[in-house]
Each structure stands twice: as C-alpha cells, then as structure tokens.
C-alpha cells in the first residue's frame, strides 16, 4: 500500500514544484461539417464543436478535484481549416468568418485556446490554402482564442520556399494588425516543418486528417520537479544525472497518463497520446532554463548548453515512454524565451542569442519559440530565419517550428509584455545581413536523400 512518504513526495511536487497537467486537448474532426455554403459551414462547425466539447471544461475540473492536480488549460484542436473551408471560402475574408466562429465556439465551451486555423502546404499551396494563409493576420486580429499554424516543409517533401516567403510577410502583417497589443497575434502563429497530427500544445495544435472523429491528447509539465530532483545530485556524474531525470520523468508522465485515461473514460472519447514535454511557464521555479543551470551552466547559452539540453531531452523521453501507453505530439523539452524566466534572465545577461537558440533547436522540441525581435525586421529576414529552422527539421527528421514576434514600435533593449502564460520578453537582436536574393528565388527545396527509404 501507498505510504506517507510517497504521498508527501507527490503532493510536494504539486504544491511546491509546479507539477501540473499543462493541457487536456480535445481533438475534433470537422470533416463532416464540410459544405459549399459558407453560412451553413459556419453553423455546422459551431454546432459540432459545442456538442462534442460541451463537457470538456467540466470534466477537467472534476479530475482536478478528484486527484488534486491542477489542469492548467483545457483546449480544442480541429481539422486544418484550409481543408474545411476549401469549397465554401472563395476569399481570405470568407476564411476570417470561420475564425470568428471558432472563437465563438471556444468561448461558449470555455476553453482557453482553439487550434487548427491551419494549412499544410509542405509541397505545394492550393488556392484555398493560400487564401487561408492570407487571412491569418485579420483572423488573429479579430479573435481572442484562435491559434494558427502553417506546415511549410517535411523530411518527405522538402521545403516549400514560396510558402516560407509568404509566411515571412504574413508574420509582419500579423504583427501590424495586432500592434496595439504588442503584436500579440504573432504569439498565436507557428510555422512548422514535420508538424505532428496529434500535438496538444498551442499554438501549433491541429487535429490531423489521420485522426479519429474526436480524441483526447494530454500534455504534462514538470520542469520544477526535474530541477528539484537534480538539486539533490549536484556534483554527481552523468550516469546519476541521467538516471535521476529518467526516474522523475517517469513519475511526471504517469500523472499525464492517468489524467488522459480518466478524461477519456468520463467523456466517452478515445485517448490519443500523452505528449512527453517539459513545458515551462513564466512562474518562478517552472523553468527549463533552470534545469540546464542545475545541470551545471551559469546561464543558458554558455558553452555546453546544447549538450546539456540534448541529454535532458533524451532522458525525458526515455523515462516517459514507459510511463504511457501511447506517446506522441511534440514530446521534448520546450525552450520558449518569453515563457521561461530562466531564458529571459539569460538573454538579459547577454548569454543567449538567437543563433545559440537555433543550435539548441537541433536537439529538442520545438524551435525558435516566443522570441521577440525588433518590429522593423524585414519580411525576407524572417523568412530566412524560418528557412533555417525548417532545414534543421527536414534534415534531422524532427519537428521544428518558428514562433517569432516582430514587435511593432520596439527595438533591441525594450521589453514586451504578453501577459499570462505567454510571459514577457526582451527584444533580441537579429542578424542584419540580407538574404533577399535567396528568399526571392521561389519554388521549393527538394526532399533530402535520406527521405528515400522505400
């Protein structure tokens, strides 16, 4: 039987080390809503989401109550909207009406975010997909809870450089459309390479077409728990370090598995995956950067950072895989800047640059995340940053993403406040040399040689 020490250990993790379930994300297929009549499509989408998700928030609260574990977010992901609106939406403005409907449905059922205002264009862009992408700035400016993502590359298809160029422009336009809120729209927009179909984390969640009608995916989080465990093995060798991370990750993931199975049972919706990610929040003690410092770095960004992150990411997976029956999503350590106080401190100390962050994304999930840059950064420069990150994903057969925020009216040295889980960030300098001629070539980068496995 369970003893008092085990009970205390678990409750200390929850109360003192910020162990929580970061999100229960309900994936909903909207494929059966499709029609060529825009009004009817909006009606169908609203009806389906509010019907399938009606008990999501209530179920989340019940689970919180019964197990005594906080569930920070309840979210919804839907089928990429470019597909759903392909027939009914003739213009970007038509797509914006769908975004507003998603926002209304999200508010009606009380979820924090709804993801899936997305297009998957890794090889080519159909006209309806281009319309959706061009609607993103307006869609994010006219909604509160809608999140958008665009997949512009994959190991199998290469990189769609036309889409990369367009996304550079769309990010700048989104920043301008939401400039009265510190360009907040860009915090809800992700550009992906190798985007997974079952990711529960925002802003990049969507419900892939390979998925069932509805599915429950769960993301856990416990950077504080890992950090506390590591503080007890200071000075010990790498074997002890790695074993400690693995064991802690196992415990954290078991909570996610329990919550996922319980939510699935209560709602009568199949359990999809647990995402084994270490996701930080701006709260003190809930930081991935702090774990890297505990491993032995003065600040994140110091030499050794990439190696420390690589071992952390790998041990989290090794510990987590056995704790869950199905693992998926992004599964790795997140390194957003604005959402992690340790990262912010490293930037302010001059230890961490965008180039080092890029190197770090080679060994963890997901990519250049929540990085605030000067508002006057050129669209082609942003496209170049996207292309670099997509290349890392394509060649390494992993998911990579870019969520950068050119904050209109701000320059290097300024701070920007996004609020809540999105945190705050110093504006980071961007390499000023031009890549215009590279980005303006057009077309696509072919799939890499190691993708031909058949």
């Amino acid at each position, binding site marked *: 039987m*369970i003893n008092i020490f085990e009970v205390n250990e*678990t409750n200390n993790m929850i109360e003192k080390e910020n162990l929580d379930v970061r999100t229960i994300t309900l994936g909903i297929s909207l494929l059966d809503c499709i029609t060529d009549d825009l009004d009817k499509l909006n009606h169908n989408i609203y009806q389906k989401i509010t019907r399938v998700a009606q008990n999501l928030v209530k179920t989340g609260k019940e689970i919180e*109550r*019964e197990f005594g574990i906080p569930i920070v977010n309840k979210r919804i992901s839907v089928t990429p909207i470019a597909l759903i609106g392909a027939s009914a939406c003739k213009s970007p403005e038509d797509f914006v009406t769908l975004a507003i409907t998603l926002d209304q449905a999200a508010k009606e059922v009380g979820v924090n975010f709804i993801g899936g205002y997305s297009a998957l264009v890794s090889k080519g862009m159909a006209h309806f997909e281009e319309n959706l992408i061009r609607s993103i700035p307006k869609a994010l400016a006219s909604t509160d809870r809608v999140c958008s993502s665009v997949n512009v590359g994959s190991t199998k298809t290469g990189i769609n450089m036309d889409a990369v160029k367009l996304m550079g422009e769309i990010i700048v336009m989104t920043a301008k459309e939401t400039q009265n809120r510190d360009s907040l729209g860009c915090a809800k927009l992700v550009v992906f390479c190798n985007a997974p179909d079952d990711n529960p984390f925002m802003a990049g969640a969507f419900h892939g077409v390979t998925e069932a009608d509805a599915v429950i995916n769960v993301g856990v989080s416990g950077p504080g728990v890992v950090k506390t465990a590591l503080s007890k093995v200071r000075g010990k060798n790498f074997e002890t370090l790695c074993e400690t991370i693995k064991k802690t990750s196992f415990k954290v993931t078991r909570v996610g598995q329990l919550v996922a199975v319980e939510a699935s049972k209560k709602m009568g919706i199949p359990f999809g995956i647990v995402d084994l990610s270490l996701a930080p929040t701006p709260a003190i003690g809930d930081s991935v950067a702090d774990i890297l410092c505990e491993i032995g770095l003065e600040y994140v960004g110091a030499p050794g950072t990439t190696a420390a992150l690589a071992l952390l990411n790998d041990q989290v997976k090794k510990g987590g895989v056995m704790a869950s029956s199905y693992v998926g999503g992004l599964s790795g350590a997140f390194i957003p800047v604005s959402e992690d106080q340790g990262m912010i401190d490293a930037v302010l100390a001059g230890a961490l640059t965008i180039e080092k962050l890029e190197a770090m994304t080679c060994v963890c999930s997901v990519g250049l995340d929540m990085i605030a840059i000067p508002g006057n950064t050129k669209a082609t420069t942003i496209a170049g940053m996207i292309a670099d990150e997509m290349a890392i994903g394509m060649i390494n057969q992993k998911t990579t993403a870019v969520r950068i925020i050119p904050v209109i009216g701000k320059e290097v040295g300024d701070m920007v406040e996004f609020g809540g889980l999105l945190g705050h960030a110093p504006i980071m300098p961007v390499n000023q040399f031009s890549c215009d001629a590279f980005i303006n070539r057009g077309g696509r980068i072919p799939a890499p040689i190691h993708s031909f496995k058949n």
Partner: protein
Amino acid sequence: MKKTIITVIGKDTVGIIAKVCTYLANNRINILDISQTIVQDYFNMMMIVDMNESSKPFGEISSELEQIGEEIGVIIKCQREEIFSKMHRI
C-alpha cells in the same frame, strides 16, 4: 473498491484526528490505514479510506473536509489513490 487518500497537514493541536474521524464515521467512510509523522514541527497525517458506503459524492466530501480543516487550522486534502499508486508503482 475505490480508495481515497486523505492528508492532514498543519500545526499540531488537540483533537485533529478525533475531528476528522468523527466526520468520516458520520459519513460511513471506512478507514483502512492511518499513518502519522511530524515533519519540521508540522503535524502530518495520511489516511487511506474507502468511500464506497458513503452516500455523498466525492466533491462534497472533499469540500466538507477542507472546511473542517479550516475550522481547526490545518489543511485537509482528499485525493483518489490512483495519483499516488500510478506514480510510485509500476
């Protein structure tokens, strides 16, 4: 049988166990195991109980126990056993 873990943490005082046990008895909640320790001068108790015979739903019992805790100046938490067993047992 669904087991529930009740934890009581707070400054030690007379009658904590009596008060909690009286509530449990009145609500037909059976105590399977009790252990108690003092951690850093704080009273720390854990009970494993069986709520199957109780007519009240989990949420109500949990809130009422929290309220009793407030009255006597301790924190009482009520959690289903699985969160601990899943974490600490393979």
